[in-house]
């Protein structure tokens, strides 16, 4: 059996394996949540153990992307719906948080207007638009960060799944959806800051966003949220509901003939996934300090899909690993040779679809088995055919 065949062969999912991976993942998340803030806050900047603040924020950003990847994996890996518009849900959640942070600036903006954000003063607006009401309250903003993406996903999914739009058609129209939203948010008169988006945030719940402690706390919060979402997704895919969802992915007409209302299940997963993406966006914005319509760009959503594909779809933890690893690679490569990043990303898209359809996580056991088998064959062959060993190396 060649490596390629072994890698692509279906892997029976052992019940214990997911649990082991979950434990490892949650341990790592807990370690990050505790150790990184600790090393950042307690160690002196000169110390070897000190974690610089920019790294704390960078890590937080990666984990937010990982959460987006998790939401995509839930819908794509388990339900077979390839959404090329998940960036829209992410950005909507981010805008909800951004609106709260804008309202927190108060009269500390450039124009010193206590009621209106700077860009509205700049546009000569006299009063706050109605849809900005309530965003000065943190709980309301957080509910909106979940509710708005959820509502959009509900309306969109209800229309799409009911009329059985599926496959590439669905992918294309999700892309059109995020593209339309991008164009809309670029408009100044939408009331979301137009081209520049929302930025210049000052504080969150009264804590200064630039302070090390706030950043450390945000990282810890991201870890907790990611862990929670992971457990939620794990619980769903392990339940009977999860089996049904996987069955829809594998043979939708058959599930329908068995009497299940397929579109309702799909809608449920789609909305849940959108809400996780929205939460990821809401955590992302205070850590990077800006949200603008560029987040809606279709290219971003497609890029997020490749994180999942590279990590390994249908595994949840694979998506998280992919989200972190690909973004780490992006940071490193764009820092070293900026032109090479798009080449690398493109090559990743091609390589992962052609050679590693199961991603890193899915291919790992196969690769280990293959190496073991190879090693076994070699040790068996060594006494009689020493040349084979050299050839093997």
């Amino acid at each position, binding site marked *: 059996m060649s490596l390629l065949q072994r890698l692509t062969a279906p892997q029976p999912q052992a019940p214990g394996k997911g649990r082991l991976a979950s434990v490892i993942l949650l341990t790592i998340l807990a370690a990050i949540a505790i150790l990184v803030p600790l090393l950042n806050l307690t160690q002196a900047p000169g110390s070897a153990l000190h974690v610089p603040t920019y790294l704390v924020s960078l890590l937080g950003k990666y984990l937010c992307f990982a959460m987006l990847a998790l939401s995509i994996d839930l819908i794509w890996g388990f339900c077979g719906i*390839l959404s090329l518009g998940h960036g829209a849900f992410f950005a909507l959640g981010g805008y909800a948080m951004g609106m709260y942070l804008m309202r927190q600036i108060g009269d500390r903006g450039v124009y010193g207007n206590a009621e209106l954000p700077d860009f509205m003063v700049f546009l000569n607006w006299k009063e706050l638009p109605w849809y900005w009401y309530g965003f000065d309250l943190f709980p309301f903003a957080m509910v909106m960060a979940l509710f708005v993406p959820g509502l959009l996903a509900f309306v*969109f999914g209800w*229309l*799409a799944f*009911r*009329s*059985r*739009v599926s*496959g*590439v*058609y669905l*992918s*294309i*129209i999700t*892309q*059109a*959806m995020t*593209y*339309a939203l991008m*164009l*809309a948010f*670029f*408009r100044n008169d939408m009331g979301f800051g137009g081209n520049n988006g929302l930025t210049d945030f000052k504080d969150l719940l009264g804590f200064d966003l630039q302070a090390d402690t706030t950043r450390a706390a945000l990282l810890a919060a991201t870890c907790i949220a990611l862990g929670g979402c992971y457990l939620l997704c794990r619980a769903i895919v392990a339940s009977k509901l999860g089996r049904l969802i996987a069955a829809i992915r594998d043979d939708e007409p058959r599930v329908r003939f068995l009497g299940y209302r397929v579109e309702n299940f799909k809608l449920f997963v789609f909305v849940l996934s959108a809400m996780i993406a929205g939460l990821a966006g809401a955590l992302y914005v205070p850590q990077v300090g800006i949200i603008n319509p560029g987040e809606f760009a*279709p*290219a971003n959503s*497609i890029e997020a*899909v*490749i994180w999942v*594909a590279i990590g390994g779809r249908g595994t949840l933890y694979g998506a998280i690993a992919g989200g972190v690893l690909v973004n780490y690679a992006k940071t490193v490569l764009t820092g070293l040779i900026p*032109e090479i990043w*798009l*080449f690398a*990303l*493109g*090559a*990743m*898209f*091609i390589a*992962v*679809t*052609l050679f590693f*359809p199961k991603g890193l996580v899915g291919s790992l056991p196969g690769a280990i088995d293959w190496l073991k088998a190879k090693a076994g064959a070699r040790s068996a062959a060594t006494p009689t055919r020493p040349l084979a060993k050299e050839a093997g190396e």
Partner: protein
Amino acid sequence: MPACRRSGRFRFGFLMVLFTAMALLAPIAVQAAEDLESLVAELGAAPLPKKDEVVQRMIATGAPEVVTILEALVERDLYTRKSDEKVVIGRKASGGLMLLDPVTGEELGVVGSRDVSRVTTNNSLRSSVKASMGALTLMSPDPQRRLEAADGLLKSSDQTMLPLLEQALAKEQDAAVLNALQLAEASIKLQSESAEVRLSGVQALSDRTDPESRVMLSRLLLKDGDVWREPDENVRGAAEETLASMESRLRMWRTVEHLYQGISLGSVLLLAAMGLAITFGVMGVINMAHGEMVMLGAYTTFVIQEGFRSAAPELFGWSLAVALPAAFLVSALVGVAMERGCIRFLYGRPLETLLATWGISLILQQTVRSIFGPTNREVGSPEWMQGAMESVAGITLTYNRLYIILFSFCVLCAVLLVLKKTAFGLQMRAVTQNREMARAMGIPTGRVDAMTFGLGSGIAGIAGVALSQIDNVSPNLGQAYIVDSFMVVVFGGVGNLWGAFAGAMSLGVVNKLLEPWAGAVLGKILVLVAIILFIQKRPRGLFALRGRAVES
């Protein structure tokens, strides 16, 4: 410059007409000339305060020679010959003054400056003559001069000029001058004392739609405090009515303009989407790198044009003709390479294909960016594609868009011919309808796939040549059109060129018709939302293929 050449030819034609008219009017001219002669003599003899009146009478004759005479008067070149008291024009020549007959223009020989005395003028006479000259130039043989005169009249709105203006109107042949004269006439009439004349002025404007005449009419409907500017109710009513009919005609013309823009946008979309529709139809895969094929075509045009510029600039007009097959070949080769190297391994996994082709598109984009740089590259248009057609009501239809419309229809016809009349087209349609059955019948589906991909990509390359004429050539060129071309394919239905055609045209036209009403961006958003909703109703597009294959 073709525009100049065109107008030059036009001017020549006009002159021909003018000469013919002059030949026909010759007997009348003789009559006027006799009058003029006595007037000229009178001008020479009259005392200074009377001269102005004589000038006015000369102008009233409407003879073209008056211009020369008055110009001479203003330039102080008008003399009285001492020998016979004849008024003559003197031009400086070697050995004194060359005398000319003011009416006939005949040369009367060179005399010394003592043999003539200058016709006396003063500043006030000269300036009043200059003012009257504005009107006189209405009769000038040079259309440019006449146009200036008409514009001057429009500004001054001198009531006394009306009879002369009407004379000029009756004779005028040049369309642009006629237009300006009519406008001036109406303007003068509208400021007349008599309500009847004002009413006729309003009626004179009824066939027009230009902004000047609309301003004139709407001025009549203004109030200064409680007093109407226009006292007469009938005139106001007529003005209101005329204004309304103007607006409606203008709206119609604007709609025509938007339709034209919509069709031109639609044909661009058609070019970009045609290849996509074919590959999607035959192979069931979405080629996310399709936009990059368009970009490759545009860059091929750029390279070819650079070659022409450096090697044979005089043949530059032919560069597009060379670029078309070259762009087709380049994009088609890249397309075939893509299909053979990547997509065929992903057969039956459309979502993975989508991701892989996206990866290819990123690589192609970055390659082009590395080679040609991230900035816009300039692609020139051959002369025959520049310029614009201008029609009434200020609508401009640019030629390059017109050629693109024609071109996209040609490409559509060519592709239809390939599909319907060639063996390859037959095989392609067979594979589109039912792949398994086609294979069972001995059609080499793999080769058909590769050829289809090549054809689709080649058409995208051709689209790139067309797009290079109206858009910026940059590495992001393809990205700008990809979502729209997807929408066209999804809206029109896959694997069906007529679907792509209907989709592209309706998308383009609806987009442009919405634009003035909702703004460019909002219009586009509305179109996207409409398509997303439309897909719910017809998940397989406007022209869905029927058959077993599509049900799977």
